Structure formats: C-alpha cells, structure tokens
C-alpha cells in the first residue's frame, strides 16, 4: 500500500501503480504472472473523471488482461478482495491482483459536495442533508438503545489513533485521551471531531493465488477461508439503525464458508470498519464478536487492545491510518496478512494469531462486506 495522505501529488493512476507494484514486488512476481486484475474505486463523479476504471486499468496491471471494477461505497476495500477471490476460486484464474485506490482531495471544496447525491432526490436532497447526519442519527440511536456513553465511544478513537502510531502509512496516528475526544468540536451531536476519520488519498493492493501457486510463492500463505456480503434496503429511514443486520448476514455467509461456528472463540484478530468511532463497536456486534450493546464494555475491559483477548483494529484503522474510501478496507486486509505472518512490526499482536476477520461498510448504512482469512488452507 501507499502512504495515506490528506492530499497526494500523485495522480490516481500513479497511486494505483505504486500500491500494485509494491504488492507484486513483495510476492516477487512479475505482472505477466497475473491472470486477471480487479479494481475498487469510487464512482467517476468523485474524481470528475469519466470511465475512471478504464483510466486506472494501466496502474492496476490491467493492460490487456481480464479486468473487473467494483464499488460498494466504503465496503469496496474488502469486497474487491472477495471479487478477486471469485476470479481465482472459479478455476478460471490461478492468480489475481486486487487494487483499491482513492483520491478524496480532488473534489473541491470538499468531497462532501459530491456526496449529496447519495441522498434521495425527492425525499431527502431538498432538506439539504450532509453525510454527518446519517452517522450522527445512527450513533444516537445506538447509544440510546443500549445506554452507551460518549466516553465509551471515545475510547475507540484513543485506541485506534494510538495503534496507528506503529503504522508507517498512517495519516493521523496520535496519543490522545478520552478527554481530548470529548473536548473536540461537536460536528453533529453526538459526533465529535476526533471521532471522525479523515478524508485521504491512498491505494492498497493484494496478490491472490490458487493453492499450488500460493504454496510455491511463499512458505507462509494467508488463505481466504470465507467471503460474505449483504446489502440492506436504501430506505434507511424505515430501519432501526441500532444494529447492522446486513453486517450480521455478511458475516455468517463468510463464517459458514470458513467453518467458523463460534466467532468470538475462533476469530483471533478483527479489523472492523471504523470511519466513525462508534462504528467499530456497532460492527463488532454485527460481526458476532460482542453481544448486542456489549462491545463498549469489552473495549473498556481491555479485551480489544492489541495485547487483549481479541485484538481489534491493531492497524490503527480509518481513524488512525486514514480513509481513502475504496482503499481503507484493503488496508485492513493487508493488516491481517502481515499480522498472521508475524510481519506487523511494532503493531504485531502477541500469541501467533491464526485466523482473522476484516469487515467494511458503505452506502446509506447499507452494505456489509466480510472476508475471513487464516493460516490453514481450506479443504477442497
């Protein structure tokens, strides 16, 4: 992956190239050993660039190859890896290169202006909403339903920004306190500024290979054991936002494939999506890694610390490393890859983790995308 930055000099194509090349180099592979390429990147309106996928293909190793572009909002970073998995698992491809790239600095004065058309043109846009609304509305409902305090939520920002200090790519690694978070500007109550991930430019890539090829390429392959994804209705005001049903469904789809029956016991490390601090807790519950309403307590008890019973977001997440929309989820997959191989450096969780889950989310509180990875090769 590249650094995650507020604004990069590099063009989208250059960012994609840097990440793709780094992935190939780390696998000691050449592009002609890649059978197909998958790209995840936000829609064209974001960059003001029509047919952006085709433009990016050169940077993704897509030249004269089968090429697939996909996008499900923030869910893309994990979803694209699932799509790459499909390519290889189908038997049509032995290897695939998955690249996710985003430049959020391009849209002026702020990508917020491009986001407004995510809202319904008739029932919502005339009210002049902004994206903060939907997160604040969901956070409030979640807090109210389970009597969760702002302090409990602020702990996620503290943990993740601290974890990010160990990540060479991090945009906002920092040592902060719960007090700092609660003293930060109220953007849309109950959301405070230090609970929000930044906008970022960046790219991340992974190389996928089928069984024999994977074992030939490395002595420590990390196997994709399960994939899942699920989309809920766009009528988000007709749903109770306290709990993400669609994340639960996506999670079970992946767990079933992976043969995981008791996620809390069988998952050693989790990278849930954390664009806002409360979301990490919300998603942990959807991922079946905490009972409904209990994630804040487990966090306060240290269960989710890097040296805790179930390390959560040891990477530093979106809050600490950064949030280039399509690439952030892939950053989490990269983290699991390094953690399971013992290569996460200062971020390494102790105890030789064997199985991890990465999850991303996107759209109008709508999509859950989940990938389970592990050190054990799935049975054919």
């Amino acid at each position, binding site marked *: 992956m590249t650094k995650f930055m507020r604004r990069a000099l590099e063009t989208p194509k250059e960012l994609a190239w840097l990440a793709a090349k*780094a992935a190939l180099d780390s696998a000691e592979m050449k592009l002609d050993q890649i059978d197909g390429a998958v790209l995840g990147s936000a829609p064209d309106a974001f960059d003001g660039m029509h047919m952006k996928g085709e433009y990016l293909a050169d940077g993704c190793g897509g030249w004269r190859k089968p090429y697939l572009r996909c996008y499900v909002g923030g869910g893309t970073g994990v979803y694209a890896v699932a799509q790459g998995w499909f390519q290889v698992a189908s038997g049509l491809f032995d290897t695939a290169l998955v690249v996710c790239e985003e430049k959020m600095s391009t849209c002026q004065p702020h990508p917020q202006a491009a986001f407004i058309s995510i809202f319904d043109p008739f029932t919502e846009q005339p009210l002049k909403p902004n994206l903060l609304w939907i997160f604040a509305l969901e956070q409030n409902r979640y807090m109210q339903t389970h009597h969760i305090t702002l302090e409990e939520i602020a702990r996620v920002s503290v943990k993740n920004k601290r974890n990010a200090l160990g990540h060479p790519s991090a945009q906002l690694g920092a040592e902060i306190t719960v007090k700092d978070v609660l003293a930060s500007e109220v953007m849309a*109550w109950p*959301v405070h500024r230090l609970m929000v991930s930044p906008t970022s430019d960046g790219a991340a890539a992974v190389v996928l290979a089928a069984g024999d090829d994977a074992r030939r390429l490395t002595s420590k392959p990390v196997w994709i054991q399960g994939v899942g994804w699920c989309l809920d209705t766009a009528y988000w005001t007709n749903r109770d936002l306290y709990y993400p049903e669609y994340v639960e469904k996506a999670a079970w789809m992946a767990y079933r494939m992976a043969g995981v029956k008791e996620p809390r016991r069988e998952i050693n490390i989790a990278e849930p999506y954390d664009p806002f601090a409360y979301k990490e807790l919300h998603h942990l519950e959807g991922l079946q890694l905490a009972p409904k309403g209990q994630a804040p307590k487990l966090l306060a008890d240290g269960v989710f610390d890097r040296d805790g019973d179930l390390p959560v977001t040891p990477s530093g997440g979106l809050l600490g490393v950064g949030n280039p929309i399509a690439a952030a989820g892939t950053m989490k997959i990269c983290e699991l890859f390094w953690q399971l191989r013992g290569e996460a450096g200062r971020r390494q969780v102790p105890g030789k983790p064997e199985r991890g889950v990465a999850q991303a989310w996107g759209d109008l509180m709508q999509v859950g995308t989940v990938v389970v990875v592990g050190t054990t090769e799935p049975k054919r």
Partner: protein
Amino acid sequence: MIHRTIKPEPNIVQGTPLDAKALKRGKIFLNSYAPALRYTWDTGEAMGRYLAELKNGRLIARSCRKCERVMIPPRMFCERCFRPTDDWVYVKATGTVNTFSLCYVSWDVRRLKQPEIPAVIEIDGASPGMGILHLVRKVAPKDVRIGMRVAAVWKPPAQRTGSITDIAYWMPINRRSQRTVSAK
C-alpha cells in the same frame, strides 16, 4: 519444491504528501474542471403522487397486502415481497422521533451557530418503524428526545410546490394540543 519467503518489510512508504501551503503559494501545477451537468429526474408513479399530496397538505403511503406493511415513502413495488404494492393509504402528519442529531455543519461545510436538527420521524398510521427524514424546529436543542411526539408544520398552500419541503419543519406536540386533537 522451492519455498520462497516474502520480504518481511512491507513496502509502504511510497506517496508524496502535499503541503497545503505549497499549494496556496502556487508551487505545484494544477488543472481544474467544473463539469456543466444538469439532471432532470423523473419522479416515477409513487413519488409523483407523494409530492402531489404534499402540495395538498397530506402525507400518503402505499401498502403491501402480503407483508401487510404500510410504507412511507410510498413505492410501487414491495422490495421484500418483490411484488407490486396494492393500495394508497393516507397517514397522519404526526409522529415520533426515532433518532435525531444536532448538526453544526451545513451541507456546504459552513459552521452553524444554531444547530439544524435532522431527525428520523416514525409516521402515525404507517407500520411501526416507518420513518422519514426531516427537520425539527421550535424546540431547544437540549430538549430534543428520542420518543418525542412531533407534528408537521406546513407552509401556506400558496407557497407549496410539491416537495418534501412543503412541510417546513416538525415541532413538538405539547400536551394541550394533544388533548385538543384527541377530543375531536
């Protein structure tokens, strides 16, 4: 079979962060583009009726006889049963706050002194949990509550255009007006 190990140091220091000052001082070449894009969205049957009824000072929903939901915003097909919806159902212009926020940032990223209060309002007469997005006013921010009962405040008929903003905002129903309403 040769086992190769992947380099332990991940190659993730690439990328050139730009400094906002350097950009301002014109030290970096840029090119800009402002697309001239205009869209005309068709309302469709469901939204067409919804907007027409809003102009008349009424809220309307659609029902599906199979799952028995009364749905607002109305739709011509039920997304769960995947069949056409059946009947138009008028619903009340009163409801309950399901969730809300106090937002100090406008849609175009300006800071606001007085917060806007977006809310999801569950509409009386529609199925439980059937909410719509709108704005709450005429209440102190610190007094807004999940579970608060609210009523729509309509623009005068001459100012309505067939838009969700024909409802200007929602405000708390006080106990006195609640009694008056139920006595009718």
